[in-house]
């Protein structure tokens, strides 16, 4: 999985490309641990994310919990398939998802 980061002030945009699965989720988790310091607006661009498993969902949820305390988090560009996963797992009610 490719993870790209771009920061504008306290806004951090993370792009995810590929698969967010059991083996790649720890990689994202590690990057987020250090990257979220001082961030008040977190955006995940996931239009190139083809696949997400429960491991990836847990990392997003973990990030959401952090951002609930220090700002906001938005997920953008989810594909139809990834959106369905968010939908059936109830994550649409927890995450802020923009088309």
């Amino acid at each position, binding site marked *: 999985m490719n993870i790209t980061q771009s920061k504008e002030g306290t806004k951090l945009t993370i792009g995810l490309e590929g698969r967010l699965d059991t083996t790649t989720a720890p990689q994202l988790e590690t990057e987020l641990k250090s990257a979220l310091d001082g961030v008040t607006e977190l955006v995940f661009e996931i239009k190139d994310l083809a696949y997400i*498993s429960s491991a990836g969902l847990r990392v997003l949820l973990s990030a959401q919990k952090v951002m609930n305390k220090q700002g906001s988090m938005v997920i953008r560009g989810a594909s139809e398939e990834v959106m369905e996963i968010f939908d059936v797992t109830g994550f649409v009610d927890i995450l802020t998802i923009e088309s």
Partner: protein
Amino acid sequence: MQTEDIFIRRTYRKFLTPTIMALLGTTFSSFGNTLLAGNFLGKEVLAAMNILSSFTFLYAMLGCLISAGAATRSSIAIGRQDYETAGKYERFSLVLSLVIPIAISIPCLIFFDGLFAMLGGNADAYRIGADYGRLVIAFGFLNTFMYFPFNFLRLIGKGRYGMYSFGAMGILDVVLVYTFLRLDMGATGVALGYIISMLVANAAGLFFLIRKNNLYKMKRPDNDELLKMTVSIAAFGGAAGLNNLCKMIRTVMLNLLVSKYLGQSGLQSLAVGCSIINLASASVTGFAQAVSPIIGVLFGERDRKGQRQALNISLFYSTIFHVLLATLIFVFSTPIVQAFGISGADHIAETVLLVRLVGISFIPASMMNIFIYYYTAIGENRNAMLLTFMHAFVLVVAFTAVHLSFDRSNWYGIAFITAELFDFVVMFIYSRIRIKTDPNLQGILLEHKDYAEKFFSTVSDGTEDGAVETSGRVVAFCEDNGVSPALCMKLPLVVEELLVVLARHCFEKKDSKIDLRISLVREEVLIRMRCEGATFNPVEWYIRQKSTLSPEDFMMDESFGMNVVEKLVHDVKYTSTFGVNNLIVTMGGKTAKK
């Protein structure tokens, strides 16, 4: 690179040794009894015991018919996760295994003298063997009952307990018979040794079966089910039971033919040959009996590829073993024959000839038995019974009769070989006829054409990395086979989640394997995963975690992966089959959840 059939191969090997050792224990009893009786009581007793072996085959036939049939039916029920039906068949089999042989023993005892004469026994044989015969008949129900724990212990993956029980029986029997013969108890002592050892083995087998069955419970069938179950047992056990019935009748007919053309010395040689056949039946049928429940479960799961793999593995191991066995028999035939008390250079030479021909016949015989049990396991019972009837009785007797009418020597033993080879011709012809009557079947294996259109089979290495790698291969499989984009996303996801859960909870070692098979029929998906390691039910675990954790904690827990699976599939079922963890998942098609 792991072969796709590694799970079937390992399960088969797990079944094979206990099956053969348990069978060997029972056949060693018979072999040892004949050997000891011949040595202590003289070769005259061999003819009497061979005549009375018809009764032994009768009770064995009942045992096979009832318990092999019920266990096969149960194995198919287990493959469909129908444990209630499996429990009902087990309970019914237990009752039938006691009631029917006892009901048959009573008239046999009443009319014993007439029956003995009808089977070809003369006054001398009656004098030697009558008491032995009456005891064998009176306690014949023990012979029938043996098959009950033997078959059902294998089904629940506890075949080694059958091996302990019936393997020990062989040793105990020989020890007791030797002791009783040393105490001058004669043929009665032989019968008593046999009966006591069977009683102990049956008690042990039943004890283990009741204590070790964690898969399902025995259940009393409803009265209105009894007739249907009896018919089903007879159908599925028909071939196995018919095998013993045919052996019984074959023994009678061969005794009559050989007695007529070759006299007493021919009968004595035949008794030795039959003892070798009986001893070797442990392996000649053992390889087939070991694979039968596996094929039954795979058939219940509609895993055509797995069925074929199981059959091929069994044929491979069996052929290698029986080539070795035939070679050993060939090399050591003279001391074997002498050990039975056969004396005189000519008599020994004639008997050696027969024994060698019999030994060679084990190679095609074991292969034919595997096909017979295969057809039984997939419900092609008529085919199985026809092949059994031909190879166990008709062809052997016919070829023997023809040979003896032209050549009065023990070369008639070649009939045991030609009968098996000719039965393959019968198998080919029958399959052609069967396909004409049901075009949905194909090939000599009579496989259903409407099984999976697309099939994926692999072995994951039981690690999280392996789970993800396997999921990636499932993506490729979906793309290569034009699966819809929606299913292309969900199917690999379900596979990853389940493989990860199994990897984390079943294995301490890194080299454990998870067998994965995916069948696609149009857009309906059947996923089957099997793994060894610790017994772990992910469905129960998920339900437990969901009910005990707060919603927030649950979403962060590893069991949340099962929640993802639950939302995407129609059904997830867990079983412990053959002592391994077994997951069956259905998804896609019209039954898919949204």
